[in-house]
Structure formats: structure tokens, C-alpha cells
């Protein structure tokens, strides 16, 4: 019996690991948790080269998210004892997915390197080449929520909708609005209700979130402070276009609208302070959230540099 239970569990796990695309016909660009995908072009990166050999390293970049990028920075960092880079920095702009364009822009960037002579008696050395990208990005969230003005169900026959929590697996950006819990709280004025949304955001990408105003810092030696890391600017929090939301907590060391992720996660509470008359029939309205931030990812590649033997 236990065996079959285990088998069933394993199968369930396997099945649950598979993702399906649903049946919608319209393309939704706001899916997934990837921003810019970066990889070395396989043809351009040999596993090993000889000393004093030229190498043209091609980096494939693709914007797999739903935000356009301008003024992204791409840096290559080599070990100066082993490689010399002709140029080490590139600027990139890549448009993202949209309803009209189902695939984000893809581009290649080439860095020219030359390996240096190896130290005496050293036959081989493994060198690590690192490429870093720093770019601004935006997460846009828009989901219908039910504003249940009669949470106590006192009115009969007016139940158009019922407030319920929403989970999401990504909005086409590394910062993911993972969960929205909807609460209809009583307002100070007893005739109103205060829609409140407990919003969980988290970094589901493989990089670091940065302050949008200083996103290049992660790629350079410049001073970087705590307020530059894991800091997200909530540029828009609206219920429909009529009800601006006020989000808390607001940290004292950050400017208004900025929130900070702790361990790649942050839970904020956004509510419409003005309140909605309780007499209004329950209705559906889009919850619109926009987060602006910088993002930084890096990748490395090991290359074996070999000495030209018996060349004396």
C-alpha cells in the first residue's frame, strides 16, 4: 500500500511540475519571471585556448520580459593577469514583449579579448570571465479584484462578486507580484468600507534588485549603500483609475513610494484611504500596480588557457 502511495505522490509531483499554457487565444506578455536573458554564444566560447590567442566573446541577450529597456549596461570583467579586453563596456536597449510582439528583442554583443602569456612552468590555468548586466526594469500588474462592499452579506440579492485572494506566477519581469490578498475593512466613517490589499512581491529572477536611480552601481566599483539594494519604487498603485492606493509600511530611510525587499521578498499593505460607500453595490475593478527598479545579473565562463609547449 505504501508503495502505491509513494508512486502516486511521485506521479503527482511530476504532473504538478508540468506547466500548461491555458486556453486563452490572446497573447498576454505579462507572464513569467524573466527579465533579460543573457548567455554566451556557444560558438564563440571555446573550452580552451592557447596563450596569446585572440578571442571574440559573443554575448546573446534577449529581453524575455514585458518591459522595454533603455540604457542597460553590459560589462565584461576578465582576470587581468590572464586576459586583456579591448573594451569592457557596452550599452544596450532591448524592447520587451507586448501584445503585438510576442517575443522580446534579441541582440548580440561582442567583446574582443586576448590571452596573456602564462607564468613560468605553468602549463594551464583556468580563467573565469564574468559578464554583468545592469538595467532598469518595470513590473506592471493588473488584475481584476472584487470590491465587496457588503462583506457581512447583509444585503440579499446583490452579490455580484466575492472578494478573494489572487496568486500569480509572474508578470513578465523578475519582480513578481506573487500574491494579493483582498480585505474589505471597515472605514473610520461607518458608512464606508476601506478596500485593502496585502501584496506580496518577491524577486523571482536570478539577479539582484537595485534602486532604479542607481542601477548601474552593481556593475561598477562605485559606492553602493543599503538603500540602493533591493529597493523598489512603487510608481503606481491604483484601484481602477479612480481610487489611488496608499501603501505601507513606508520606511523612514527611504523616499516616499520606495519599498525594500528583505530576503528577496516584501509584503505591503495598500488601501484606498478615502473609502467606498458601503451602499455601492459590489463591483469588479482592476488593481493596477507598477514597480520600477534596476536589475543586475551576472554570468561566468571558465576557459582553460594552455601554454604552447616545446616552442623554445
Amino acid at each position, binding site marked *: 500500500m505504501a508503495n502505491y502511495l509513494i508512486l502516486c505522490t511521485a506521479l503527482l509531483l511530476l504532473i504538478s511540475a508540468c506547466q500548461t499554457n491555458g486556453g486563452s487565444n490572446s497573447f498576454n506578455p505579462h507572464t513569467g519571471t524573466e527579465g533579460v536573458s543573457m548567455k554566451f554564444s556557444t560558438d564563440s566560447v571555446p573550452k580552451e585556448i592557447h596563450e596569446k590567442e585572440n578571442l571574440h566573446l559573443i554575448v546573446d541577450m534577449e529581453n524575455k520580459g514585458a518591459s522595454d529597456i533603455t540604457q542597460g549596461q553590459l560589462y565584461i570583467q576578465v582576470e*587581468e*593577469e590572464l586576459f586583456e579586453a579591448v573594451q569592457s563596456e557596452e550599452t544596450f536597449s532591448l524592447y520587451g514583449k507586448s501584445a503585438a510582439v510576442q517575443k522580446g528583442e534579441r541582440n548580440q554583443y561582442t567583446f574582443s579579448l586576448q590571452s596573456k602569456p602564462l*607564468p613560468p612552468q*605553468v602549463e594551464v590555468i583556468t580563467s573565469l570571465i564574468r559578464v554583468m548586466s545592469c538595467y532598469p526594469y518595470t513590473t506592471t500588474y493588473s488584475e481584476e479584484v472584487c470590491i465587496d462592499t457588503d462583506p457581512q452579506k447583509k444585503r440579499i440579492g446583490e452579490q455580484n462578486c466575492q472578494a478573494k485572494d489572487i496568486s500569480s506566477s509572474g508578470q513578465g519581469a523578475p519582480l513578481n507580484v506573487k500574491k494579493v490578498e483582498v480585505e474589505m475593512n471597515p472605514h473610520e466613517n461607518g458608512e464606508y468600507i476601506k478596500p485593502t490589499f496585502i501584496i506580496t512581491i518577491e524577486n523571482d529572477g536570478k539577479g539582484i534588485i537595485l534602486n532604479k536611480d542607481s542601477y548601474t552601481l552593481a556593475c*561598477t566599483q562605485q559606492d*553602493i549603500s543599503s538603500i*540602493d*539594494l533591493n529597493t523598489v519604487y512603487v510608481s503606481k498603485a491604483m484601484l481602477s483609475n479612480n481610487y489611488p492606493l496608499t501603501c505601507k509600511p513606508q520606511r523612514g530611510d527611504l523616499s516616499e513610494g520606495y519599498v525594500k525587499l528583505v530576503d528577496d521578498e516584501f509584503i505591503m499593505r495598500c488601501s484606498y484611504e478615502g473609502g467606498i460607500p458601503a451602499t455601492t453595490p459590489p463591483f469588479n475593478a482592476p488593481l493596477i500596480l507598477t514597480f520600477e527598479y534596476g536589475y543586475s545579473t551576472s554570468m561566468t565562463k571558465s576557459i582553460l588557457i594552455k601554454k604552447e609547449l616545446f616552442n623554445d
Partner: protein
Amino acid sequence: MANPNSWWKRLFTKSKDFLRDDYEQTRADMRYLRETNVRDAASDAAHSLKDITYRAQERLRNTQINEGYNSVRDMHLAEEGAMRHFRALREVGSQFQEKGIGRKVGASAAAGVVAGSAALGAGKFALWSGPKKLFSIGSKTVKGSFALWLFIAILIHLFDWQTGFSRLFDVGVPYALVFHLFVAFIIWISLFDFSDRQALMTTFSIAIFAYFFPFLRSIPFVDQFDLLITFLNPMIHPIWVYYVLLLFREQKSSARVIWGAIIFFWVSYFLLIVLMNNPQLGSQTITNRDYIDLFQLGADWTSGITTFATDFYKNSWKGFTGVINQSVYQATGGDFYYNGQIDRNAKEKIGVYIEDVKAASPEYFNDEPVSVFSTIKAQTLDEPIMMDVSCYTYNPKTVKTSSSTTSQTRIKGILTPREEYTVLSQDEEDAECFFESLEKGRQMVGFKADFNFQTQAYYKTYFMDINRLRTYKKENIQILREFGITDSDPTAIYTNGPIMIGMRIKEPPIGIGTYDLGELENSYTIDKISLRITIDNSWDGKVTGIQELAIMIPKGIVMDHNDDGTAYCSGFLFNEGNCGNLNLGERCDDNLNNIYLLQIPTESTGESTTTTQPDSDASLEGQESHTLDETKDVTPTVDISIDKYRSISCPLIIEDADLVLMNAPLSAKFFKTLIKYTYSLEKEIALTIKDAAIITAQEDGKEAGVYLSEQELKKIIFDETKDITYYSSNPIAVPSKLTIEKELNQAIYDQTKAYNINTMFVKAMLSYHNWNPVPPSPYQGIMQIHPDVLSEFSVTCAEGYEKENAQNIACGTQLLRQIANYLEASSIPVTRTIILAVYRSGLHAIDQSENCASQRKFTCTNDGYSSTNTYTQEVVRRHV
């Protein structure tokens, strides 16, 4: 005593009745259980009952009367087992009855547990009562679907593989460990009895092992063995699959087959790798080499295995002691030891090696020359190796007090083909060492190579601005992982050779720069780090001097120095230098490194060229004098020997953090150590020298008309492989006659090949007269040919054969062939002694003796052929 057969029959009948009764009773229990909706429990109980019944009946069927008391005893136990489980079922039934239908849920669960237990117990019982081939971990057996568990084990391995065998502690939780413990728990509850503590311990131990297995490759000494690195790859070791195979191997033949295949694979793999890495090991059986006899073959095998085992032991021990040194010394606050490793990608075997030290003969006598061979190999990548090679034995008149015998006791041998080598890239030479004779007894003969060498080590570490470092840590960002760096604990990499260099700086990333304290007034600069270096002699030889020791550190970092510019590392004085001092050409860049050179005292005065070393301990004890070590290199050396190891600590100052960081968030920097030194390497072989006065007449006994074997024939005929192998060598030649031998080698080889006579046989004949005719004599030329014997066999030689060596050899070899042909045609044993006797004195010498029964004339002392007899014995003895 009662008749066992009738007793068994009664017991059989009784058991059948008992089983039938209990079967009925259990069916009643099942009915009750069904009525109380405990279907699962009932089902399990039914399976249990069927199983018990089936096994018991099978046991009864299979039990033969002549099995006697053992079977009867087994039956007793079978009855008891069955009764125990039936009682358990009845108990369950009665409990349910008491608790009533309203508690059916709880009862159901309880029944499930008990029934499951009963089922497992029944399984155990059934197997126990069957053939006693129980496996398992401990003495337990398991019950379950082998295919299912194998599939699950493979899935588990694939999952672990998919994570890259990650053992990271994400947010402080070792997820992988939890996962493996969970797997162990599932296996335990599914396959074993709850009360089985041994199975519990074993299964959870497997989980712990599966978790820690990927760490094995990180053990320092393991890094030194490519074989181990490959073998310990977690990807190729599905630990849980192994465990499942072991669990089911007694029950499933397929498990045994797979397990056997795995074992076979690994054994084959190891043999293959060992042979690839140690081609000398056992090569005697697979290469075309000349082996004098079984003794030599055995000696070579022993030598190969010993060498391999010794190397393996030494390397392993080196690794272990490295770890122990480091931990113990650090724990006791004493000196430090830092490990390094050879780059596992490096394939070239740079350095100097003395290999295949081997005697030319399995035994020697004290009145004959001794010859020992070896192969000297040297390889370098950059700096040429200047090497002096010599060979020696020990003067038996001095006492060897310890393994480190002083060189005053040594006697130098004659080394060919040369003693001095200049190796630009790689060189290999077969060397021979000659001694005119050695004293009887066990004598050591050794080869010694003195050479200059250089070893380079580098240590890569990472620097980060201190403020950034603190910020990242504050934000719980795992810095190295974020930057794609997996080597969080760098190890120095050193080039192959006699010296190991280990280096260490604090754990990366190293924060440098001025720490911004914000509102506090006093900011401070992190500008001091310490570079620690260990230099260890990792070979068996001795470091006889250090010519140069350079430490290269990145620009922006300097050694902490005095006002006069001098810097000290653990008492050793260093001066600032540049690439020009190192003479490394393009392989050294002053723009990247600050270079510091160990101050070298001049050899002529023994004083330092500038400042003497202030630390008396800097000159290490243990250096031995070597009278044979006449170092021709006049380059000054530091008079230290590194018998064990030496660790130094160099205080460094970050002078320019921006230069170090290079406008990068994380900067990789190399610290390098270069040592140029002289090294002395030795390798010895033990020889057994016999007393020549005791010469047995062994060959005579074999010769007396009855000894003729293929082995003996092979000794006479030309052997292409053997004779080419020893083409340029001689078995017994007196060193003073070497020139003659070398001159005649070609002629001997050509003629022996032409007449199908063994080359070494002819050489043995030539050596009898030290490669010279013995005047006055009827014997002619270097081959000592008797004209009467020539006539007897109608051999016609070229004119002048009496004086011309080449013609004489041609003539003598032709005569030997004629004699051998005659003997064969006449059905006379074709042995070396008979051929030699005829060669020396004609056919009369091998006639039957009238004075000595069953002997030929030349072996009988009373027939006037004593010189011939001596000649045959001596030549045969010299013929290896």
C-alpha cells in the same frame, strides 16, 4: 529415540490441522473486520494470512523427511510464528468489538497498522521459514516491488542531479539534507518493520552519506588524484539506487545482476585507469621485453606494485598529513601549514624522474662486473634544467647508520652514456651504471640526479570594496554565488615538481578600502592583510639550496616594509625587485605585480649581500654534506633544506584600493610565488652478490645427455627481441673493454643473426678472455677458434680471420652453427655446455668418459679436459 520420520508425519498432520483451524478462525475475523468497515485492514490481513498459509504449506511441501530434526525444529518455529500473528489478528478483532462501530475511523487506522505489521511480519516469517538466504542490511529482509523502488531511487538521483548536487544552506536550511532524510524515512517506513532499529540506523546513515558524498571531492588530498576526482563524481553514483539494489539483491536476481554489473564496471574502470596512469605496473606481461627468468619477472612485478603502492600511500599520507598539519597547528596556535594542489588539468609530467632501476642480471658474483640500468626522464616548460647524474654504491667498510647514509660512504660507479644533461623541454635517457665488482652480500646501487628547478604557484582571490561588502552582507546577498564564483575557498595551484607551495589569504571576498562609518567621525581604512605561504618538499629527495624566491603581489598592494625599504616575512628578508630580476621575459609584467625577492647570501663568504637574516631559525637544520654533490653552479643559494616544510607569513598593505578593485564590483587578483632551487633526487636498488668461490656444477648435471628442453634451445638461438633489447649492452664486460665491445657490437649482431646464434651467448664467450686473445695459444683471434675444430667441421673462414676481429667473429659464429647442426643431426643434446666443449676441444671432448660413469669426457676430471670444463661452466654462467 523416536523415529524422526513418524514424528515428522504426526507433526505434519498436526500442523495442517492447526493451519486449517486458524485459517477458518481468521476468515471469521475477516468477516468481522469487513462488517466494521475496516476493509483495508481486512485486505491486508487477508494477504498476510494467505502469505503465511502459502509459505507454511510450501515449507511443508518442500521439507523432505530426511532433513530430520532441523526441519522439525523449523516447523515448530513456523507454527509459533503463525500462531503469533493469528493471535494479533484476533486481538485486533476483539478490540474493535469493544470500541464499537462508532470508532471505525480510528479502528481502521489501528487495524491498518497492525495488519501492515502482521503482513510485514508474515513476510519475514515466510522468508525466514524458507531457505535462509536472507539479505539485507543487517539481517533483515525487505518486502516490496523492486521495480518500483528502483524507479523511485532513480528519480531521486535525477532530482539530486538536476539541482547540481547543491548542498547550499538556503536561508540557513540544508534542503538537500532534509530531502535525503525524508527519503530515508519513506524507505524505512515502507520497507522495514518499525521496530527494526538496525534498518533505521542503516537507512538514515545512507541518507547522511548521500548528502555528504558530493563533499568528498573537496577533501584536500583527493584533489591530487584525477582518478579519485572522477570516481567521486556524484553524478555517476546513485547512492539510493545502490541501496535499493543491495536491499533487493537476495530476493531479485535482476538486482543481483545489476549490482554485479556495477561492481564489474568499477573494477574494470580502476584496472584500466591504473594501467593508463602506471604503464610500468605489470607491463612486463604485455610488452616485448626480455626477462631473464621467472625471478626477474617476479622482481619487476613486485617493484611495479611496490612503487605504485608506495606512491599511492605517500600521496594519500601527504594529503592527510597536510590536513592534519593545518588543523593541528592552527588549533594549537603554532606554525601554519597551507596546502596547495597541482592543477588537475595539467598533463605534462614536468620535473626529473629516475625510473625503472633494474639490474642486468638477477644475481651477481663478487668477482664479476655489476651493471644496473635506469631511465632518467626530465621535462621542463620554461627554464632549462641543468642536471648532473651519477651512480653509486656504499662502501661496505663504513657502517650505514640510518636510511640517510652519508655520502662519504659512497663509491662512485661508471655511468654511461653521459653524466651531464641540459634539458630545454624534455629528455629521456637509458643510463647504465657499472662497477668492476661488488662485495658479496646485499649491496645497494643507486642513481642520483642533481638539478636546478623552479616551481611556481599562484593563488587567486577576490577583493571588494569594504562598504559594498558590508552592504551585500547586510542584505543577505551571497556575494560569490551572485557573481558566479563557485570557489569560495581558493587553494593555491602549484606546478608539478619536487616542491609544494601552498598559499592562503583570508576568506574571499576580501573587503578593502576606507570604511565609511556614516555619522560617526572616525572612519578607518582596511589596508592590512596577511599572505601566508608554505613550502614543502613533496618528493623523496632533498632541496639542496634555494637560488631565488620571489613573491609577486598585485599592484596596489605592497609588503609591509621598513623605512629603508626592507620587508620581512617571518624573519626572512625581502627586497623589492622587478621582472628583470627574475629573467622571465614576457611571462612577468611589472605593470601588474609588485615583486619581492628573498635576499640571497653569497656562497663565497656565506654572508648576505645586503642584510643578514635576523632570525636564527631562518637557516634550518638537517642539511647534510654530500661529497659527490660537486655543484658546478656558482649561483648563490640560501643554505636551507626543507626536510619537512616551512611556512612564512608576509604582512601586506593595501596601498591603493582603487588600483586593486579596478572599477569592478569584485576584483580577482593573483598572488604568486616562484622558487628556483637545486634538488637532489636518488633512487636505489638492492642487489644480491654471491660468493664466486661457490660455483656449483649445476649446468653439468643438466648436460649429462638427458637435459634438453625448449628453454635451453632458446638460449642458444638468435632472439631478435632479446638481442635488440640488449644490443648496446653487454652482460659481463669489463669496463676497460667497453670500447672494444662497442666497436664490435654491430659485427656480433650481424653474424649472430646470420647464423642464428644467440648474441649474448657469443658475448659471453668473448668476455671469457676479456675480449682479447690469450697468447700463446692454439686458439685464434678474439673468438678463440681452434683450427683443428674448424677442420673437423669443414668450416672455411675468410683470410685473416686470425687477426681481424670482425672476420674472426664471423668465423667463430659460423663454427658454432655448424656444431649445433651436427649435434642436432646426431641426436646429441644441443646444450650450451656441449656446444662449448666441442667448440673448445672438438668432438672427442663429448665422448662418453671411461673414467667417470655416465659422464662425458670434458666433465670428468680424469680425462684431461679440465680447462674445457672450466671454460664451458664460466661461459654458461656469464650468459644471462
